[in-house]
């Protein structure tokens, strides 16, 4: 079988559109996931039983079901739920992109929550006491003192999780979204160019993930607080 580079050249712009969507999902998933995940982490550590109970249940649920199922749930059930809540009677269409963004934030938040929680637990009890003794409010303590330290302590794990998230975005092909893998699949099937397409996207995933993991390694060396 002959590898046809011309097919690759003509498919390239479409693949890049797919890659662009993959990166969008990653950025939204990471940003939303870390924000929502951090709130969940704080809730889990809270003394309020209701709050910590909810956060614990949410995290355990999300971590116990496959991502692909959550994508299906949000894609097929949320339109019904919205229709029902708004008394439309019929399902209300929710775009595939929005579905995907929401799904990734909801799902990844559970994983980021556990990482951030580990970060908070790695901070000594004395730091919490110091915040209290200075009269800093809970909110200020978390924003200015505890969260920056927590994130810093778990930054390598956060980035590793982000690499996993980046790869997991390929699952959105199940609802026919055009991410990098989705774009490749569409062209591969249209033109019968499976080898070229799947080798190419494989190389793109590899280059991005490998570069990112090298970055993580570099960071690990630099993360000390400048000990003398």
């Amino acid at each position, binding site marked *: 079988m002959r590898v046809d580079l011309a097919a690759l050249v003509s498919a390239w712009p479409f693949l890049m559109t797919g890659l662009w969507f993959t990166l969008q999902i990653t950025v939204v998933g990471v940003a939303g996931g870390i924000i929502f995940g951090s709130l969940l982490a704080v809730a889990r550590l809270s003394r309020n039983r209701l709050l910590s109970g909810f956060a614990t249940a949410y995290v355990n649920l999300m971590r116990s079901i496959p991502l692909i199922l959550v994508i299906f749930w949000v894609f097929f059930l949320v339109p019904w739920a919205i229709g029902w809540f708004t008394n439309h009677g019929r399902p209300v269409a929710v775009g595939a992109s929005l579905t995907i963004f929401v799904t990734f934030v909801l799902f990844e938040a559970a994983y980021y929550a556990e990482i951030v929680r580990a970060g908070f637990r790695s901070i*000594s009890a004395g730091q919490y*006491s110091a915040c209290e*003794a*200075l*009269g*800093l409010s809970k909110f*200020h303590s978390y924003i200015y003192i505890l969260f920056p330290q927590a994130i*810093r302590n778990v930054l390598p794990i956060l980035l590793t999780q982000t690499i996993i998230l980046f790869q997991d975005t390929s699952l959105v092909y199940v609802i026919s979204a055009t991410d990098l893998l989705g774009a490749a699949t569409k062209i591969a099937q249209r033109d019968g160019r499976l080898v070229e397409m799947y080798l190419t996207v494989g190389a793109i995933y590899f280059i991005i993930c490998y570069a990112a993991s090298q970055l993580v390694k570099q960071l690990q060396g630099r993360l000390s*607080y*400048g000990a003398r």
Partner: protein
Amino acid sequence: MIEIRNVSKFYGAFQVLKNCNSSIARGEVVVICGPSGSGKSTFIKTMNGLETIDSGEIVVGNFRLAPGVTNLATLRRTVGMVFQNFELFPHLTVLSNVTIAQTKVLRRGKAEAEEKARSLLARVGLSAHLTKHPAQLSGGQQQRVAIARALALDPEVMLFDEPTSALDPEMVNEVLDVMTSLAKQGMTMVCVTHEMGFARGVANRVFFMDSGEIVETANAAAFFDHPKSERAKAFLAKILKH
């Protein structure tokens, strides 16, 4: 300045503080000493609400602390605290460590907070280290930053919980010097410490604690020269032997 009345505290069934009573006047320097596990550290931490109490009350200035009182903002503004392990914020510079509570708690402007921080850091001899991070400083320097950080909120009382216990011996004096000058300027101070030289030279009174009780309170010279209780005698014999 501080009134402590019938304060008791339990960890489960174990009673860490047993009906403690004492009174500390404005400008007084009190050293709390006693064997380890005697409740000194817990006792000093009740004075700014870091440890809750199960019965009794503590009055600091105009603030009354009792079991169940939760809004401690006024208390924290009145009382500054220095910890055994410094507990500086490692991700912030020395200057930011001293300004952060000023801007967030007292809502001082940035310029005002920095001016205050610079003058306090000069007072503890650290003007050359403003932009460094805590990990770049020695233990003694870190503890002096921690003292400046607490003073930045203009407290009326300063609590020191074993401020020199985590330090290498050659750094103990630089911290004690700062504490001594603070005492001379009339700050009300309560110190848990094993530095008996400081206690004798600077403290007005010594509280001796054992098994959660304040066994003996005496002026510093009297305590060291003529301890009344057997437990204090035994304690002093152990620590002053060498």
